């Protein structure tokens, strides 16, 4: 058998943009290999997760900025118990919270690619790895991380 195409098995909930469109630019960005976060045109502050208003200056004037897809591990966990049917038999996997110092310190959740039993250390640098699910309906792309 060939190696699985995805870090986690297919069948987990598929991400879809919110009906009001708030986070649609983020998910569209992942499809073209961009990691986009919100930035305020008025005060130039960064914002993540997405919201309609800038929490710093209260302007409704947020733009979506592609940021360099790298960061450092802020926290992590190794999940063992399968809480979803799709995870049964998968074995342990690693979820990381990655801080992006060059984008105001916003944080992103993803999986850490590689050996699920690898030693994970808070503070080490990581780079994004885009994982397109072109066979899904609708297609989507996840943003994982690997040690830099």
């Amino acid at each position, binding site marked *: 058998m060939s190696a699985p195409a995805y870090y*986690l098995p297919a069948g*987990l*909930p*598929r*991400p*879809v*943009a*919110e*009906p009001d469109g*708030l*986070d649609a630019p983020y*998910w569209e960005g992942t499809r073209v290999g961009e990691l986009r976060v919100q930035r305020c045109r008025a*005060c130039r*502050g*960064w*914002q*993540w*997760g*997405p*919201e309609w208003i*800038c*929490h*710093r*200056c*209260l302007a409704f004037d947020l733009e979506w900025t592609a940021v360099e897809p790298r960061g450092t591990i*802020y*926290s*992590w*966990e*190794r*999940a*063992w*118990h399968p*809480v*979803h*049917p799709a*995870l049964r038999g998968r074995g*342990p*996997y690693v*979820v990381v*919270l990655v801080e992006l110092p060059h984008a*105001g*310190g*916003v*944080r*992103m*959740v*993803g*999986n850490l690619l590689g050996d699920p039993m690898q030693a994970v250390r*808070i503070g080490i640098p990581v780079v994004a790895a885009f994982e397109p699910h072109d066979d899904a309906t609708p297609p*989507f792309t*996840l943003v*994982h991380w690997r040690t830099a």
Partner: protein
Amino acid sequence: MDYSPPYQMRNAIPTWERDAAPSRSVRGRVAVAGVGETPYYKHGRAPEPEVKLALRAILAACDDAGVDPRAIDGFASYSNDRNDPSRLAAALGIPELRFSNMQWGGGGGGGSAAVGNAAAAIAAGYADCVVVFRALAQGQFQRFGAAPPAATASGEAALTFPYGLISPAQRFAMKVMRFLHDHGIGPGAQRAIALASYHHAQNNPRAVMHGRPLTAEGYDESRWIVEPFRLFDCCMENDGAAALLLVSAERARDLRQRPAYLLGVAQGSEYRNAARGHNAPTYASASFTTVAPRLFAMAGVTPADVSVVQSYENFTGGVLMSLIEHGFFTAEEANDVLTLENLIAPGGRLPLNTSGGNLAECYMHGLELQIEAVRQLRGQSPNPVPDARVAMVISGPMVTPVSSMILGTHEVL
């Protein structure tokens, strides 16, 4: 005016000066007069529908207080309890419903807030006799610990579910891992919290884990759920119902039980606690860093005055952070303070979760902790702390909003 704090700079946030008039406190004005619960069951094992469990718990609390159920004129609950006060009032033949309240937020964060909301209604004259209740029959509805059966995820869930970060344990392990890392806290701290709950449950016939003791070896050998949480770091999931009856302090003095007076209560969370996708600026927190100071200020006591603590265990790491944020010890002291010996009644330095709590008595969404605090002040606990006069309850670490409360006997009014 520049009212825009830079991202993650809490100190720059403008605040209004608070109005500290004595009339704005509930201290000593309201008391818990009755407590009651159904038998506690493993999840899915309740022999009766959830709403019937709620009714039984409410009647038990009335009976404990010696109050006719028709005297109830208000209800308060939390975490989207499914049992609507209007239905309960109709079912119980209550002459007039005067107060109906739901505390926003999920998890157990609303347990103490619901008591506070009920007390505020009594102090403000909205109602005279308010029930705080929670009923759960997870076997009849969706379980908390399993993924919801949806094919898609949007909003906050879209940022986490596709990465296998789905359950509450997975959501909060990330916070606790960071906290343990920041302060060099070892596995013994979480273990002691789990062992204390199981220790206390062995004296509590109500406890689901009564007769099921846990040893340090049993803890260490238990499977990982999600690092840094082992099986015994995680709460149970249970069926049952619990209720407390609140009345004014004056009225409570004429009722059957020794009143447990509300000294203080506070709810809320820090700056942008709910920033999506794990972006809370104060991330490695149980969410009490701003709540706890308000609680102690209203209650007029310090951590050293607290006889016994009930601290909501969704996960032991949350208890650890809750106790630190309420000032019982510092993060740097956690390895030394969090030992089984220190946490058990009657002689421990900080008796904790003396009924067994969410880990070993029942996951009644934490409301069993309020009941245990009342029983400690009455001398009715299965693990009594001698001369307990001040009892604290901490509700729902790591969610938002959270809440906590302090009860006291008449000696500390």
